[in-house]
């Protein structure tokens, strides 16, 4: 039985909206609202949603790069259950060795004035990994592990392509032997042919170093490919969470269905009968009453406009936040038949 590595319970983050000279708080952006999930050791949890749904904020709250408004975070380390939210100062800094982040944009996340060696060595130096020789050896080893040549160490980031830069970012994230890596849109800035290389690399590294991933992305196909389980977010809340195949074959939330329908298929034969979702993503500072998705939902009923649906278990391990999850017969992704 796999152990939970990270437990997130009722995590909430409200950003105040300030206005005027006195910076009075006039409202709140409810970026993350009552989000709970567990990531088991060695698994990949995909977190998908459209821009502004709170997926990146969730990642940053877990890393304690942002302070939560409410909720709890527990991290299991060597059999102990560490309360992440209680960590402060030096203890928090030290604890970050166990959790690292891979960024979306490989162009802005690497310091252009540092050599590759310094970029990868920085976390090692910051947490006193060892003497200079040990650090050099570790850096050389990391660079090989992510598929770059050690000759590149003296160069600056501008000399590398997007894919190679992302590899440098991954090497930096791996430097301190973390348990959990939060991948925030790690491939969305890359060319298609390079995207596949980086996804393969992330999977290989996961096997080799027993890593656990929280994989944040908006690309459903990428999330399906890499994740064991998937959570779908909308307007700050998780609206559906299930094992990957269950979620894609039998979605239980209308938003998940619409999201899958909207993705253009790279096969021209499958002429679309696209359900186009009307309207725009709900504004997290001014959420509609009831179910936040109801103004765009084609199955909306009166109840949805008043009652907010709770995330509840519909099938074994399949959670959805919809009043009618059992009644709706939603369309999953058509299974692609492999030929040849």
């Amino acid at each position, binding site marked *: 039985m796999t152990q939970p590595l990270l437990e997130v319970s009722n995590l909430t983050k409200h950003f105040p909206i300030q206005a005027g000279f006195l910076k009075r708080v006039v409202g709140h952006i409810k970026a993350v609202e009552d989000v709970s999930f567990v990531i088991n050791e060695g698994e990949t949890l995909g977190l998908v949603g459209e821009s502004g749904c709170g997926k990146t904020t969730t990642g940053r709250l877990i890393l304690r790069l942002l302070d939560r408004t409410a909720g709890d975070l527990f991290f299991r380390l060597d059999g102990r259950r560490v309360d992440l939210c209680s960590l402060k100062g030096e203890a928090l800094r030290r604890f970050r060795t166990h959790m690292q982040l891979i960024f979306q944009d490989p162009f802005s996340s690497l310091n252009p004035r540092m050599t590759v060696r310094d970029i990868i060595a920085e976390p090692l130096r910051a947490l006193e990994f060892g003497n200079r020789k040990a650090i050099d050896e570790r850096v050389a080893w990391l660079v090989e592990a992510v598929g770059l040549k050690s000759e590149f160490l003296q160069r600056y980031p501008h000399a590398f*392509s997007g894919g190679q830069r992302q590899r440098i970012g991954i090497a930096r994230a791996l430097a301190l032997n973390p348990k959990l890596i939060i991948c925030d849109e790690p491939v969305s800035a890359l*060319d298609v042919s390079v995207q*596949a290389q980086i996804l393969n690399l992330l999977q290989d590294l996961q096997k080799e170093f027993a890593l656990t991933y929280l994989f944040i992305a908006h690309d459903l196909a990428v999330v*399906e490919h890499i994740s064991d389980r998937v959570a779908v977010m909308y307007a700050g809340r998780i609206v559906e969470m299930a094992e990957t195949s269950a979620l894609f074959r039998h979605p239980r939330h209308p938003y998940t269905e619409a999201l899958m329908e909207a993705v253009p298929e*790279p096969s021209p034969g499958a002429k*679309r009968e696209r359900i186009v979702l009307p309207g725009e993503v709900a504004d997290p500072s001014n959420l509609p009453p009831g179910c936040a998705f109801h103004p765009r939902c084609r199955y909306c009923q009166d109840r949805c406009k008043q009652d907010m649906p709770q995330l509840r278990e519909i099938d074994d391990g399949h959670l959805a936040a919809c009043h009618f999850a059992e009644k709706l017969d939603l369309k999953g992704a058509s299974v692609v*038949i492999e030929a040849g």
Partner: protein
Amino acid sequence: MDNLLEIRNLAVQFDTKEGMVHAVNGVDFDVRMNRTLGLVGESGCGKSITARAILQILPPRGKIVSGEILLAPRNGSAHDVPRVRPLDLAKLNPRGKAIRRIRGADISMIFQEPMTSLSPVHTVGNQIIEAILLHQDKSKREARDQAIEMLRLVGVPMPERRVDAYPYELSGGLRQRCMIAVALSCHPRLLIADEPSTALDVTIQAQILNLIERLQRELGMSVMMITHDLGVIAETADEVAVMYLGRIVEFGTAAMIFNEPRHPYTRGLLESVPRIGQGHGERLVSIRGSVPDSFTRLAGCPFHPRCDRFMKGTCDGAAPPPLEEVAPGHKVACFLYTGGARPSAPADGTPNAKGGA
């Protein structure tokens, strides 16, 4: 002719301090009347530069060094209208009056990021009105009414109010709709859409793609859809040109490109994209290496260092493979198919055909 635009042997170069960049190297294709041509490729393949060359809005230092861009004369449906010769846009002065009359009126373009291509200091209404007044003989009042009509046409809610909104007041999806309204305000014959949905969320992307398709049907125009997203191409394009390092490597109908890809690059691209419904997958097939930087000039086929069908002595020879027809309407630039001996291996034809045609 059936073609609205014919591009022949177009080459664009950038004379930079670091050296000459050959951005587009002899590109040939046609845009057919009322059809959609998809131009697909990775960053740096020259797809946007090709589009900008058509409108003569190349970035500084960019120059069309050879080739023709022939725009069919505007004629009514009547056959008795005397034909005028097609106009070669490549020969026009980029700052001249002639090309200005084409821009917006005959050929319009929409861009990836509407926030950077709409003016932040003018209302969206004024930006539409500007285009109308420039090309049509209308009063300001009429132009304003037409602007409101355009906004309604592209599905902007409350167009009478939104006409006075500034771009920053609108969401990304609405901004993109406004940009389409600006582009279509003078009923161009060709709309060039350069990654029109890349910056948008998938549900908004679906809205915008549907909108472009609907407007194409209603207004009758050709569309050139430029994107790196194979899904978008498959859903919108009638014909597809695949570009790599400034050349077209494969051209055909969407069905040919997606169901019977011939060029190893096209095949690689199609295989490397994960698809919905494939499940939690094992390793993806990827193309090795990455797109070389734009200063690199490779001998022979530009794809040879990354190609898994590389043939020593042939692919890295002196000349790149010509774009030749391998089946009616299906052109490929690859030594596997052209230049005599055809190897037996690709004879199965459809190694990664997925889904039905």
